[in-house]
């Protein structure tokens, strides 16, 4: 699983390639149509497509003339799962940090003198 993900992340590291994938998420298209919104030559786009194809992120149709490009969802889903578990760990940490910050703020906001009628010692160590 690791080498495949490696290739996926390498393919995703480039902004043009991410933009191509975003466009393909709307549906399959030809290289010519794909190149249109980018300020790039068709050969340059083809080069990016080769990288995406090697990573299994896109596939080309059999139709010899059009050879439509389409998005392959599986590697993307795997890469996403990888990132998701990393994100989940940090989210759990940050949720604990939220709770801690809330407590720190509550402690700060607490009135400095002890409440009247409560004979509490100023310091009570556990």
């Amino acid at each position, binding site marked *: 699983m690791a080498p495949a993900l*490696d290739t996926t992340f390498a393919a995703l590291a480039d902004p043009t390639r991410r933009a191509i994938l975003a466009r393909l998420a709307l549906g399959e298209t030809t290289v010519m149509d794909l190149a249109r919104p980018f300020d790039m030559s068709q050969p340059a786009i083809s080069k990016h497509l080769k990288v995406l194809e090697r990573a299994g992120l896109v596939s080309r149709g059999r139709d010899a003339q059009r050879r439509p490009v389409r998005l392959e969802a599986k590697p993307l889903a795997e*890469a996403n799962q*990888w990132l998701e578990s990393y994100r989940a760990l940090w989210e759990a940490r*940050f949720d*604990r*940090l939220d709770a801690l*910050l*809330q407590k*720190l703020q509550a402690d700060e906001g607490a009135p400095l003198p002890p409440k009247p009628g409560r004979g509490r010692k100023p310091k009570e160590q556990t």
Partner: protein
Amino acid sequence: MPATATSDLDVTLPSDTEIRMTRSFAAPPRLVWAAFTEPDLMQQWMTGPSGWVLKVIGGDVRVGASYRLEWHRASDGATMGAGGVYLEVRKPERLSCSERFDDPWYPGEAINSYDLEARGAGTILHQHFRYESKAARDMALSSHMDDGMRESYRRLDGILAEAIAREAGTLGA
């Protein structure tokens, strides 16, 4: 990469060697700073997988000073340590430090930086990790998946052990 709606934590990979995270907190930068730099506060939230307890050694937050984090697991006495040196200290807006694990599960050293941006009464945290290579970055990214998988396997081990014990009991009766 699509963001999930369950949380406002944003994780991106701006290049082959980086991980960037952005998240907002409902407390001013000075409190977030304290939570990132004071050992007794760090211990309360920077914990690892369940069952591990974090111990922080340091607290002298100035450029060139070192810090050390140690995770201990009570069940089998396992320990895991990491440490580094503070590279940039601009309280309460920017903190940067190096990070290296004792038992390196990613090669080389990472440079971690934390930018705290005041936004209203709260803080936006920009957390940035840079690794020496893409391989190291990917190992750091995937390691947490391993944690999750290890946990699952451990649970599976427990279930299997129980099933085996039950079967042995039935046969013995």
